Every structure is written in C-alpha cells, then in structure tokens.
C-alpha cells in the first residue's frame, strides 16, 4: 500500500491547492505564481530528459514551447471560442470541460513534430554541434511565427482565455489551475514512467556509452528520436498551458531567454535527476518572485546566488540522485524503479 502513497499524496495535494483557490484562501497572485511554477516544472523536467538523462546539450527548448503555445491557442480558439480568426466556435463551450485535453494533446503533438527537426540531425551530430542545431531551431520557429501575419505575427495572439471562462460558466471551479496542475503532475508522471521503464533506461545507456548501447541491441536512433519528441512534446504542452494562463502569446516571449531559464533550472536541479529538476523549478520560480521588489538588483543577485550554489555544489542540488536516494526513508513510499 505504501508504494502507492505518492500516487495518492500528490493528487491530494493538487486537490488541496484547487480547494484553497476555490475558497479564495489563495489570492490570485499566489495562484498565478503556483501556475507559473507548475509550467516551469514541466519545462525543466522535460528538458532534463534530453539534457540530463540523454546527456545532450539542447539550448532551444523555448522554441518548442512556442510551437505548443501557438498551436494550443489556435486549437482552443477554433474549438471553443468565438474569435475574429475562425469565427464562431465549432463546439459548444461546455464541451471544453471534457475536450480541453485535446488542445494540450494537439499542442504537444505539434511541438513533438518540430522536435523531429532536432532529433534527426542528432543521429549524427552530437554535443555542442547539436546545441547549435537546437538554437537554430529556436530562432527558426520564432522567425517563422513573426512572418505569419495571419496569427498576428509579432503583434501576438489573444483570445484563448475565454475557453477558461466557458468552462467556469458551466462548473464554477478554478479550471486554469486544475488544468495546469494536471499538466504538471501528468508530465512528471509520464517522464518518470518513461525513464524508469527498461525502454527508457536506454536513454541513460545512450548518454553513458552510445557505442555500447548500440551494440547491446538498443536502437539508439529510435531512442533519440523518441526522447526528443517526448521532451519537445511536453514543452509544447507547457506552452499551451502558458498561453492560457497569460492569455496572450507573442513570439518574443519564447526567445533564448526562455530557453536559458529552462537550462538553468535543469542544471540547478542536477543533471538527470527528475526530482531535482522539479525541485529546482519550484525554487527558481519562487526565488524570482520573492526577489521582485529588488528590481534591477534582482538580476544581479539571482545569478550570483546560482554561481555560489554551483561553487558549493558543483553537481546541482540533487546531483544525479533522486529524492529517495538522498532520504532513504522515502524509499518505501516511492522509488524510481
């Protein structure tokens, strides 16, 4: 029974947050911070799959988020809202309650497809050379969207937020919070299941010794393809959630700065540690919010804190360990087998 403790505990915590938001005990600002935190968790956990578990150096994760944000917004507008772009909604507003996951799925699928552009060169190209390809893809995505005037180009795109109000009209719950939490817990669970399966352990094998992996019957190209697609697809889901939380997407929001943030979270948490990247995403978001009053000094202090942290812990908060490795007592509640 204890093995399932986590599966009960985490949804319970999520439900608790939702109930608190519903009662108004958490004000909207705190709710918004929690939502951005959850989105960052998805970003950092999904990038960790490539940068940590697979040992590649992808620095264009923002590009996939961008694809997801746009595709998610467009789907949401097409299906559930009356918009200038698509005219009347295809489906009645209440259907969003059930069909909203379709939006996330579509966003993820589109981002995963763009992930292929990176995955295919990765068969031959590795390391810093692959890093350039990911960067180039980030630039390409942004530039492509800037040139698409139909979806607003550089002026950005609005109009996906009414989907949330449509849901709230039917059942009055903080739907945005619910979907973001589902997205975050779902993504982390998905990644955990992937990397703890024998199939996904191939990712670690590719990271540690690609030649040995290939010789020991691991189809390395397929592993790379699948891992890049899972990672970028989840970034796309994060993007779609982001778009609905902010209510506006603009290609400029997903530039290298966004990718850098994701990268910092991964390495802060420790390469290859899923719980580390979740923890660091939470800490990083809180740190940024808590230091907001410092204004410009915040952006001097935050890097300074991170540099000091790396000096004391040059392998990130968790190293490549998971929570149960560090706190053995947790082991009976959940493992990473």
């Amino acid at each position: 029974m204890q093995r399932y403790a986590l599966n009960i505990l985490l949804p319970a915590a999520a439900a608790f947050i939702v109930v608190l938001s519903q009662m108004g005990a958490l004000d909207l600002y705190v709710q918004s911070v929690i939502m951005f935190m959850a989105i960052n968790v998805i970003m950092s956990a999904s990038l960790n799959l490539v940068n940590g578990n697979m040992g590649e150096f992808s620095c264009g994760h923002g590009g996939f988020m961008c694809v997801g944000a746009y595709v998610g917004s467009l789907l949401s507008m097409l299906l559930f809202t009356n918009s200038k772009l698509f005219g009347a909604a295809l489906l009645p507003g209440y259907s969003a309650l059930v069909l909203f996951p379709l939006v996330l799925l579509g966003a993820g699928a589109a981002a995963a497809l763009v992930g292929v552009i990176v995955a295919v060169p990765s068969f031959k190209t590795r390391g810093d050379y692959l890093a350039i390809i990911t960067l180039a893809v980030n630039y390409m995505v942004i530039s492509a969207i800037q040139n698409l005037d139909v979806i607003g180009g550089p002026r950005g795109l609005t109009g996906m937020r009414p989907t949330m109000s449509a849901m709230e009209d039917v059942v009055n719950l903080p739907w945005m919070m619910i979907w973001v939490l589902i997205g975050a817990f779902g993504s982390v669970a998905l990644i955990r299941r992937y990397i703890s399966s024998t199939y996904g352990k191939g990712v670690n094998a590719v990271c540690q010794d690609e030649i040995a992996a290939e010789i020991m019957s691991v189809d390395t190209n397929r592993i790379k393809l699948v891992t890049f697609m899972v990672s970028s697809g989840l970034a796309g889901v994060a993007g779609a959630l982001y778009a609905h939380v902010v209510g506006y997407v603009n290609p400029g929001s997903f530039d290298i700065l966004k990718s850098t943030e994701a990268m910092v979270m991964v390495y802060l948490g420790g390469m290859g540690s899923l719980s580390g990247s979740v923890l660091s995403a939470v800490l990083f978001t809180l740190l940024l919010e808590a230091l907001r009053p410092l204004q410009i000094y915040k952006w001097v202090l935050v890097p300074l804190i991170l540099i000091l942290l790396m000096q004391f812990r040059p392998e990130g908060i968790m190293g490549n360990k998971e929570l149960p490795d560090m706190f053995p007592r947790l082991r009976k509640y959940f493992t990473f087998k």
Partner: protein
Amino acid sequence: MKIFGRLSLLALALVLGALFLAGCSKESDTIKIGFDIPLTGDIPKVGEASKFAAEMLKEDINSKGGLEVGGKKYKLQFIYQDNESKADSAVNAALKLIEQDGVVAIVGPNSSKQAVPAGGICNERETPMISPWSTNPDTTKGRPWVFRAAFLDPFQGPVAVNFSAKQFGAKTAAVIFDIANDYSKGLADIFKAEWEKKMGAGSVVAFESHGTKDQDFSAQLTKILGAKPDFIFIPDNYNQVALIVKQAHDLGWKGPFMGSDAWGSAELMTLCGKDCVGQFFSTHYAAAGAQGDTKVFIDRYNQKYGYIPDDVAALTWDATRIVLQGIQDAGKVVADVKAERKLIRDAMANIKEFKGITGSMKFDAEGDPIKCAVVVRISEDGQFVFAESVCP
C-alpha cells in the same frame, strides 16, 4: 550532502511563507496606485522614465498634503513592480499589485507585449488600468477597464503619410522596421497601406525589416538605397534610429527621413548627433517651444534628472494624472478597494476633456484617447521644434 538537501527544503518553506505573508498592511488615508513597468529587460530606459515621471508627480502632490478628494486629503503611495519586459512577468506583476498590494488602479505596462496580457488580467479582476505607451488595438479592445494615453497606430500612420507627402513632395517611400517589435511592425504595415492607397500600388519601393537587437542594417539600407525612394520612413526606437540614420549616410544616402513617436527621446540627439538634424517625426508633444504646463514639466524633469523627458515620461505623467482625475471625479474614497476601483473606472470613462501635457484628450468607447498628434523637426541645436499639428 543531506544537510544541504534539508537546508534547501527549509529555504523553500521560508520563501513560500514570505510570499504568502507579503503585503498585508493597510492604511486608511493613503491611495495606492500600482505601476507595472519594465525596469529591467529589453527597454529599461522606458521603465526608468516612467518611474521618474511618476515619482515627480507623487512628490508634487504629497508635498501639498496629498490629493484632495471630496474635501479630504489623501497621501499617494506609488508601488512599482518590475515586469522585466516579459509577458508572464507583467501578468504576475499586475496580479501582485491587484491582489497583494491592493492598488486602486494600475499605470502601465508600457509596451504592448506586456500591456495586452496585463490588460486582460486587469479587466478580469475589475481594476482600472491605463497604459501610457501601448499602441496595439488589442490592449483595450473589448476591455472596459483598460485605457491608454497614447494615440493608436491607425491614427499616427496617416499623419506620417500626409505630412511626408506634403513636406517632401514625395511620390515613393521606403520603410525599415523592427520585425520583432509589434509597435514598429504595426506602424510600418499601416504606413505602407496608407501610402499605397494614396500614391498607388508599388509606391512603397522597399519594405525592409531587422531584429530588435540588431546593430548592422547595411544590407537592408543597401537594398533601400538601390530602390531610390524619395524618403525613408523609420518607425523604430530611437537607439536603432541613430544607427540606421548614420549607416544610411555612410552608404551615401542624402535624402530625408520620417520618424514616429518612438524617436521622441532626448537621448536621440546624444546618440545620433548631427546626422539626425533636420529630420521630422510625428509625436505626442513638441518639447522645444512648449508652453504652460508642458514647459513646466519639461523644465522640472530636466532639472531633477538631468535630461529632457522622453515622450514616455510625459505620457506616464498624463496617464497617472488621468487616474488621479478619475479618483477626484469620483468625489469620494471608499474603504472597499473593489468599490473604489469601480468608482474610478466609471469616472475615468466619463472624463469629458482632460488637459494633459501631451495635449487635451478624452476617451472613446474602447478607452482609447482622442487627441492630436504633432510633427516636430529636429533643429540644429538638437531641439524638437513644432512643425505641424494634426487632429482627428
């Protein structure tokens, strides 16, 4: 190692706690106004100008004992939140101002990239917001709680078209703009459409773009010069204008330039120097030869901070004063923040005529101002001299 993990958990708890407890104090005879401005990120100068103008206004009023509403004086408290020039950060900043700081109204954000999402939040949370600088129609569209102090691109575009056609006797035009900047792109599109409507298809002979942080524009300019336009329209930020104008001259361009309101910074002349002399741009007010309140504002700002205020400073000043006017027009200050916000919004929407330092204005149904634009000429000594005024 273990200790470290525990310490980080402790830190997490502390930070969480701090976040939840932050900003809960209330004072009865102060009025809180929030500023959601970019103090870091791409355009820190814009945030700085907004902050300076607001600080000056606050000191003005507080030194006189506060803002008089319904016979009682209230001290002003301005809360500045940095939105880092990012959309998500602007949303968080707006929510923090609304939920935790309990402000009655928000001034900002400045650029549309932040103003559009923040406007959505303010509208949903029923808090009046006025963006000093945003020109994207989406900022206010369908949002009764959101206002702005700047005129829109669809108004400014034709101003530039008509003025340059008349002043330069031009038949053809070239445009260079920033593709990553929605303001620049929007204005460029409108300018192109207007010009071609007036002069016939193909009369915009070159329509070139660059990126936000680009510093070299020689390829685009070579192309523009090759197309031999009668003048070049540059709806760009002043720092890029300085580089574009210089590089165009290096490549042998002798013709005139036409600019937009983003030129309107005192820094333009320090950066651009003699290359910009004699050029024209459309803007909100002419600093040189200004009279009355405008002159007082410019002189005091110059004295206090050491430079002539940018248009964004003047617009922030006006935007903040519109909020204050709304508070005064409401006639009373009620303790309940939500009710107070409603009072202010209604009062702002009903302002008949507001005499600001960037001209007199009133709001249309969307919350956009109806006001005049001026075209200024850059004089030999670097002043922005009034050339023409265009009213809707």
